[in-house]
């Protein structure tokens, strides 16, 4: 039950993108097409879950026993960067089309604050390994939900007759704001 609530909370109530404003750059950058958004979601899900889990292991297995908590940021970034590099290598081989359409946003997962934020949050909350893995996966799913919703809207928006002064980035940011507003409705669902 606790885990179900955790998942719901991470996806809907405390959505990383729409409520915590983490990971905004791919949210706006790769949300023009649904297929790209799905690819990005898969990449972030892989990186976030694995990186958070490995970070937890490193923190509790290495850093804390030796009193090296101050190395948290640098070692986490090292792990995340390695994970992203792995995804990049795999994507380049397995799906060159997706690799090209993700473009700069793929290596940018390295500095995606959602990924590092998730890893650090798990440590801060003193979560167990199971909770860490579930929460990271759910958080990445929340990120994906926001991205997919937004890309769906933007695909329709691209064909709509937008007033001239609102075209492009302006209407994208307005839509993102409205989407965030609508997610406020979930507040109070889970504490």
């Amino acid at each position, binding site marked *: 039950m606790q885990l179900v609530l955790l998942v719901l909370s991470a996806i809907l109530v405390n959505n990383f993108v729409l409520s915590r404003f983490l990971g905004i750059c791919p949210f706006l950058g790769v949300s023009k097409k649904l297929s790209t958004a799905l690819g990005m979601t898969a990449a972030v899900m892989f990186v976030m879950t694995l990186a958070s889990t490995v970070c937890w292991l*490193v923190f509790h297995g*290495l*850093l804390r026993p*030796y009193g*090296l908590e101050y*190395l948290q940021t*640098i*070692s986490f970034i*090292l*792990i995340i*960067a*390695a994970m992203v*590099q*792995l995804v990049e*290598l*795999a994507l*380049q*081989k*397995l799906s*060159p089309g997706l690799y090209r359409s993700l473009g700069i946003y793929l290596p940018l997962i390295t500095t995606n604050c959602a990924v590092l934020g998730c890893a650090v949050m798990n440590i801060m909350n003193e979560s167990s390994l199971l909770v860490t893995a579930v929460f990271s996966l759910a958080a990445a799913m929340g990120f994906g939900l926001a991205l997919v919703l937004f890309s769906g809207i933007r695909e329709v928006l691209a064909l709509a007759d937008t007033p001239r002064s609102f075209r492009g980035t302006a209407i994208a940011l307005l839509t993102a704001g409205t989407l965030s507003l609508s997610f406020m409705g979930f507040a109070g669902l889970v504490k």
Partner: protein
Amino acid sequence: MLVPTVVLSGIGLLSGLGLALAARAFAVETDPRQDRITEALPGANCGGCGYAGCGDFAGAVVRGDAKPDGCPVCDQETRRLVASIVGLTVQDRAPQVALILCQGGDDVAAKKYRYNGLASCASAALLGGGDKACGAGCLGLGDCQRACAFGAVEMTPSGVARIIPARCTACGQCVAACPKDLIKLVPAEATIHVLCSNHDRGPAAKKACAVACLGCKKCEKSFAEDPRIKVADFLAYIDYEHAPDDPALAALCPTGSLVYRGAAAPAAERTSS
């Protein structure tokens, strides 16, 4: 001191080792011809071919998506070399240069308001098409200059862009950068040009700019038959397929929008465009 160093470098080493193994497992084999073509290309990564850079273009040539003579920048010899790497031949083609179809600087062209915004033609063009009274005029904020990877665009003191033909490689980046669509690629040996893009009727064009083409047809009528310069929508066009080469034609133009740039022109005019 020792423990943190060992821990951190240990993490780094392990990830490095993992990545090295992954790189071997996921290695993407590239066609060796692609590297050879990339080496032969100019390497300016200007994007004039429509691909993200020289490497991307080389890949497209190897796959057969792009023609081996698709690089607008490199010379004929390089095109032949690129084609020979993939076992094809290319036809020679006439070299081109970019040409800016406006000479309405601040000294001759009227302004309709004072533009005080970002120094970029693209943003100035969003405000009622720019500050020039002429709806087609060069805004002079240098978007083409910044787009040019070869330093072939200069800004005149009166605020109009000019191509330096000797440096121009006809890559077409400036053509894409100009929000007013003022830049065209023309045959390099063409000597006579209409340096105006204004389609307004004569009086309106004249009011906006002293060097505008008025559509008076004096140039068109100077040809007894089969005119090489035609006027359509109050603007003269050169038929570059059969470009005329006659300095006397430029003298016919009452506003000076028809310009001669051939060998007989004064040196100062020849270098500007």
